[in-house]
């Protein structure tokens, strides 16, 4: 079932990524971690469907935020990140998915691990925890190319300040801020050991990113003793894209 959403706000997260806020009058509500399918239809009837994670926490205002990263040869993302204007309408299907979700009733420690734009559904979980006043302690390990590619940086800093139960660790893969202690590099066993919950606390882990990232991180988490049934993963495309 396709619903029509109206774009009510636009916000650039980075040079390459934009958050679209959509008002969907008959939105049934969602759970953090779910996604929507967006369908664009050209005047000749050609249509394309893409899946985007929901970035916003569940809210009573029938609003859905998605953050879209522009892909160089993308068919849909250049339109959503450059051409869409406030007042435009988009077709949406969802919310979709009941497995890669976090609900405020969960009280176990939560380990979030994002690769690039895989941060989006994890941000919905962080926002959901914050808006619902949840008590679960959260850790986020955010692997990102360089500082200017970070999504939601200011908000993450505010949410993780002082004695907040949210702790954020950045892992830069190409370029770091000045005087950063760790040289650029991918998430490795040492970082998993230092920056994630000890497995004996029984954390629930959510890993989202490109398939290669998810496979590597899920393996590292299992390698330090996390039970595979505590690790939930979501992989996103494009698939087989040349690097």
């Amino acid at each position: 079932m396709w619903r029509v959403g109206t774009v009510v706000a636009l916000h650039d997260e980075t040079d390459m990524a934009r958050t679209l806020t959509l008002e969907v009058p008959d939105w049934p509500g969602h759970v953090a971690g779910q996604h929507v399918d967006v369908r664009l239809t050209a005047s000749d009837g050609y249509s394309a469907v893409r899946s985007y994670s929901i970035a916003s926490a569940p809210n009573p205002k029938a609003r859905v935020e998605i953050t879209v990263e522009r892909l160089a040869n993308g068919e849909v993302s250049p339109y959503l990140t450059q051409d869409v204007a406030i007042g435009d309408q988009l077709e949406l299907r969802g919310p979709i998915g009941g497995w890669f979700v976090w609900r405020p009733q969960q009280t176990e420690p939560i380990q979030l691990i994002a690769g690039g734009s895989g941060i989006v559904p994890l941000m919905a979980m962080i926002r959901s925890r914050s808006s619902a006043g949840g008590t679960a302690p959260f850790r986020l390990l955010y692997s990102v190319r360089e500082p200017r590619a970070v999504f939601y940086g200011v908000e993450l800093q505010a949410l993780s300040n002082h004695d907040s139960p949210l702790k954020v660790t950045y892992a830069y893969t190409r370029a770091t801020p000045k005087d950063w202690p760790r040289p650029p590099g991918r998430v490795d066993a040492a970082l998993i050991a230092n920056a994630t919950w000890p497995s004996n606390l029984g954390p629930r882990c959510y890993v989202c990113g490109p398939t290669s990232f998810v496979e590597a991180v899920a393996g590292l988490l299992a390698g330090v003793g996390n039970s595979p049934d505590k690790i939930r993963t979501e992989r996103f495309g494009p698939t087989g894209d040349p690097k």
Partner: protein
Amino acid sequence: MSSTTYDYLDGNAAAGELSRIFVTDVTAAEGQCAHCGAIKRFAEVHLYMQGPGIVARCAVCENVLLRLAKVGQRVFLDMRGMTYLKLDTSHSLKSSA
């Protein structure tokens, strides 16, 4: 971390298309592979979407679990690679919040 290029996604990516067929969420549904016997959530399958249809393979043995092909307004669904799929009907997608 290796630089292997993977050409699959996972069951989450098929959920929108399958929501046209199933009235309950499939990603949390538990299914058994008819080949190796592994019992996993549908979200965990390896999903191949580059072809004209969707192919879901077992994350353990790569047996084909499900094939979905669209021909005009018809959908062909082949699920013989699974011995069962256990769907939770206590909440439909419409009330999943």
